[in-house]
């Protein structure tokens, strides 16, 4: 029998997480101010009894809004019931996606600046490689991770690589939902998972929410692992995001 004394436990732990940042990059430096309309909507919902678990993929109305917003940005029309899952934020979106894809030991091909997630990839047992180093005739599988902020021309090339290989494509659109800006880069409908955060919506920083969207075959396991990890996203966070998206839609229209 191996007797694990507390000091062993301490040294093993320290070694395991040495590469991870103590507080992460997600602690916002600026004071948080919530839009009064969001406070009112969240307060009304909570006092009306919205204090329970939501359904595990999230509030249906919020999932529908996200699907609509993605279509406006040029994404495929994802089914809100089977193709969209609400998460606690961009980071959780990526984490539950990696769990759902069961990619331990696989290669993750990173495109553009993915440095903020490099330690997460390694912690999850993935081996990161720069997509620029991939041979043209490389037919291996694994994961492509890319961020929307990269140049359009680069995205075209990466989408071509995905369409010609067995890679699963994870496209992080960050805070694109909530902007009326540039369309999304090309998406390979049956192999691209779109992830993003919603806490950059105006006045929504106190809540934290995100999403994962894609074809049902890829989203099903992600939904299972989201439920296993945190059951569902906080109800007020979802209500706040829905309120912010509604307000934005009114502005746009």
């Amino acid at each position: 029998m191996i007797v694990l004394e507390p000091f062993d436990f301490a040294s093993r732990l320290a070694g395991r997480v040495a590469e991870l940042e103590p507080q992460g990059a997600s602690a916002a430096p600026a004071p948080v101010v919530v839009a009064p309309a969001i406070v009112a909507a969240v307060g009304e919902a909570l006092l009306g009894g919205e204090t329970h678990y939501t359904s595990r993929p999230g509030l249906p109305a919020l999932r529908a809004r996200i699907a609509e917003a993605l279509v406006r940005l040029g994404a495929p029309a994802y089914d809100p019931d089977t193709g969209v899952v609400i998460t606690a934020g961009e980071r959780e979106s990526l984490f539950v996606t990696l769990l759902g894809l069961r990619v331990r030991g696989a290669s993750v091909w990173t495109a553009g600046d993915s440095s903020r997630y490099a330690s997460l990839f390694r912690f999850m047992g993935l081996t990161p490689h720069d997509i620029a180093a991939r041979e043209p005739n490389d037919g291996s599988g694994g994961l492509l991770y890319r961020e929307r902020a990269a140049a359009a021309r680069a995205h075209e090339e990466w989408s071509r690589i995905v369409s010609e290989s067995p890679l699963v494509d994870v496209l992080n659109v960050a805070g694109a939902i909530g902007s009326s800006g540039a369309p999304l880069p090309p998406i390979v409908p049956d192999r691209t998972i779109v992830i993003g955060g919603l806490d950059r919506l105006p006045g929504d920083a106190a809540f934290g929410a995100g999403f994962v969207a894609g074809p049902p075959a890829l989203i099903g396991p992600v939904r299972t692992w989201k439920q296993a990890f945190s059951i569902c996203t906080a109800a007020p966070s979802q209500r706040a995001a829905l309120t912010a998206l509604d307000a934005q839609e009114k502005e746009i229209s």
Partner: protein
Amino acid sequence: MSAQIAAGGEQATELRYSLMELAETLTDVILLGRGDPDMHTPPPIIEAALAGFPGPLDPSPVQGLPRLRQAIAHRYQREKGFDLDPEREILITTGAQEGLFLTMLALVDPGDGVLVPDPRYSSYDQAIEAAGGRIVDIPTRAARDFRLEPEALADRASQGKLLILINPSNPTGSLVPPDEVRAIADVARRSGLLMISDEIYESLVFDGGRVQSVAACDGMRDRTVTLSGFSKTYAMTGLRVGYLAGPAVFIDAATRIKAAVSGPCPLFSQHVAIAALEGPQEPVRAFHRVFEGRRRVMMEGLAALGIPFSQPGGGFYIWADISKFGLPAPEFCRQLLTGSRVLMFPGSSFGRQWSGYVRISLLQPEAKLGEALERIGRFIGTLKAERRA
């Protein structure tokens, strides 16, 4: 860490969700399934939290708001006489389930044995399996109300690195009394086990019982992680606030992992938790009285129907033996739901061998529980008649 599919845990969880989703398609269903209190979060808690908004407010570090950690430390000191350093020994999580996952990711290496009582809530399995751990069941017995016993632990202690104690238990409601907790802790310490003590139902114990915190047992402070949260105590499942308390080196590691995989618990939810802890505690006592009454109604009703059950010492579940009705629990529950409109969870969603049991949640008013018992009575009457025929 491993992302191997959590076969057993996932199947068990899906079994419960499939019944919940079936229930959503039916009308007039009495829900005795999911562990989500039917009462809403008390309005004074929500109003107190809302008073702090729209802000400006300080953002939350990943470890959680200092004021919330301080309030938790005060509570431990006040109620348990146990000192926690809020700076180094507490992490606020986005619900207790996330806390469980973070703990497994921090402590479990692929192949490590994790000792868990059987039966148990299947999310433990999923968290263990996600970290690449190996589940080591510790059997429990009906004769001891399915409590984890020190002797059973001693038999298997050499097979694991960690022990999870869920006290009171989900799904059985069994409460391990303080002297037995100390005996379990003693076995764990002598065997070199780390312990995770899930104490989320600690405010709901009955018949004068109490939850002995494992971390307060001799020699356990440096090898115990306490897992708890606000969902059950304050009826705020939807807010998703939990916490981990443990050695500073563990909290530092779990915080780093949380920073990588999810970030801080939502700021708003943390303010609701602060309001809950710092405000009057009468709602907690009121919830306790409510569940005490419901427990009595259900126990008396099951006894009258001749359905055996284990003595629930805490939590809001009753673990009942339906084996004599001749249907495996999943089918029993499906027929009870579709034919009689009562949702409860099959025992096999808490471990493969428990197909002779059901978990009944006390999450409806007493009148509804009475109606559910009537429906159950008619249902088992039909089953008995069919068996006679």
